[in-house]
């Protein structure tokens, strides 16, 4: 059990000892280890995206009386791989009037925030690439970068539909950042720490979702909006804007946007797990497995929601944010503050 729990830690320490045994300088060893972490995160990103693309299609299929992809490999496991190969070999079309450089860069940039964020998320006890003291702040800062590639994509395509999509993306992401931050703030007030691992450690007795249910709800809703998922997938709302900011993208560039969506969903679920659902904590199973399970449940719910609800309208979306979510989260902070004060002084 102990061994399974720490299997990845043992792996990294073995790599580290091999490098030291070869005789590298400690500084270079650290650099090589950083590279190893980066590769690991990239691998996680890719695997997560590939898996959840398939999983979503399967689940959508089951919701719609269909088997989902089931031809390639057992249960259609290789469907996403086949899709990726197909997309890689597709012709890359760039509109004549597009801003070519930005059009090329946007799909690359879109992957950066989730990768950066994954570095600070603890997948298990001590299983974290960089255990930052200000982990939460770091993740919030990094994920808010994700607005830029969407706007770049929409702007550079030089198309009215992409422009509308980009505008929607910007207004939506910036406004939904606020409730996310506020609900994280409530956790910080209780935990008294910005370190993700410490926050998890404090949830040994009681998960924060039971202490802060409203905060969790706000975080969850705003997170779906942040990651552009239905019912908040307005920037690409295909029945209105053809494909929104993605209209002029094809082939692998489009696929990168697509995969990045799943990565950011994963990051968001991982954050929710860490902050509210007790992270890696859980009996019997190894910690990282608990973590993956909890993330998986959240992902399932997000996918389930997507295939059930109609899309919300853009003004209603912002109205919902500014008139309901933000006041609610401010009230929540207020109540939390009182609660924390009372708890610290009277108990």
């Amino acid at each position, binding site marked *: 059990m102990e061994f399974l729990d720490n299997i990845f830690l043992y792996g990294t320490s073995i790599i580290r000892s091999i490098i030291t045994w070869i005789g590298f300088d400690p500084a270079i060893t650290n650099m090589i280890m950083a590279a190893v972490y980066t590769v690991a995160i990239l691998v996680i990103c890719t695997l997560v995206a590939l898996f959840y693309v398939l999983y979503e299609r399967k689940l959508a299929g*089951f919701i719609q009386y269909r088997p989902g992809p089931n031809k390639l490999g057992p249960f259609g496991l290789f469907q996403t791989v086949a899709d990726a190969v197909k997309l890689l070999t597709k012709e890359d079309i760039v509109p004549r009037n597009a801003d070519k450089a930005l059009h090329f860069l946007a799909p690359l940039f879109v992957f950066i925030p989730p990768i950066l964020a994954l570095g600070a998320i603890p997948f298990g006890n001590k299983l974290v690439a960089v255990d930052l003291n200000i982990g939460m702040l770091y993740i919030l800062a990094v994920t808010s970068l994700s607005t830029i590639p969407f706007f770049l994509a929409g702007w550079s395509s030089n198309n009215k539909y992409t422009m509308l999509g980009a505008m929607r993306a910007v207004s939506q992401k910036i406004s939904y950042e606020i409730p996310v931050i506020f609900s994280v703030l409530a956790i910080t007030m209780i935990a008294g720490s910005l370190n993700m691992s410490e926050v998890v450690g404090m949830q040994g007795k009681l998960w924060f979702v039971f202490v802060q249910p409203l905060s969790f709800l706000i975080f969850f809703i705003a997170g779906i909006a942040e990651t552009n998922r239905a019912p908040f997938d307005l920037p690409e709302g295909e029945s209105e804007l053809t494909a929104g900011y993605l209209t002029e993208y094809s082939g692998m560039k489009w696929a990168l946007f697509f995969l990045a969506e799943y990565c950011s969903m994963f990051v968001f679920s991982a954050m929710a797990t860490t902050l509210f659902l007790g992270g890696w904590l859980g009996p019997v199973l190894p910690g990282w497995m608990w973590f993956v399970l909890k993330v998986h449940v959240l992902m399932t719910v997000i996918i389930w929601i997507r295939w*059930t609800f109609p899309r919300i309208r853009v003004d209603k979306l912002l109205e919902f944010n500014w008139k309901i979510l933000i006041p609610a989260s401010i009230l929540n902070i207020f109540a939390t503050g009182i609660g924390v004060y009372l708890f610290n002084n009277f108990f």
Partner: protein
Amino acid sequence: MFSFWGKGLLKGLSVTGKVIFRKNLTEEYPLVKPNIPSQWRGGFAYEKDKCIACGICVLECPNDAILLVKEKDENNKNVPKEYKINLGYCLSCGLCVESCPVNCIHFTKEFESATYLKKESVLDLFNNQNLEAERSTYGKPVEKKEEKEEGIL
């Protein structure tokens, strides 16, 4: 009843959640051939020996999709010399099959009539009578087989 904002959303989730565990209804078409009903209007079969080259089918066809060239045989009777149906123009309305006085043209249960080239969509039924294909009962008074119906829900 207890009512709150978001109740409808939860109800919706409960419906889709239930469906996840129901059996799927997809017909896996290229692997599993569909069950073609007996009256199917698909391809054509033509019995040139029966045909009296009366030309009623040509007259009945709304879209002029049928070509019939007739000639006289030794008994001075009309016989067909050429018989083609252009599936590119065919509406599959079945008026030709219904109107044939000697029942020499039939629908078949073929349902894959896509072709790569436009000219391939012209059926030369005189030279390829397509008699081996399974015939449909459309326009013919034939006893029908029993087919079972299943509810889906």
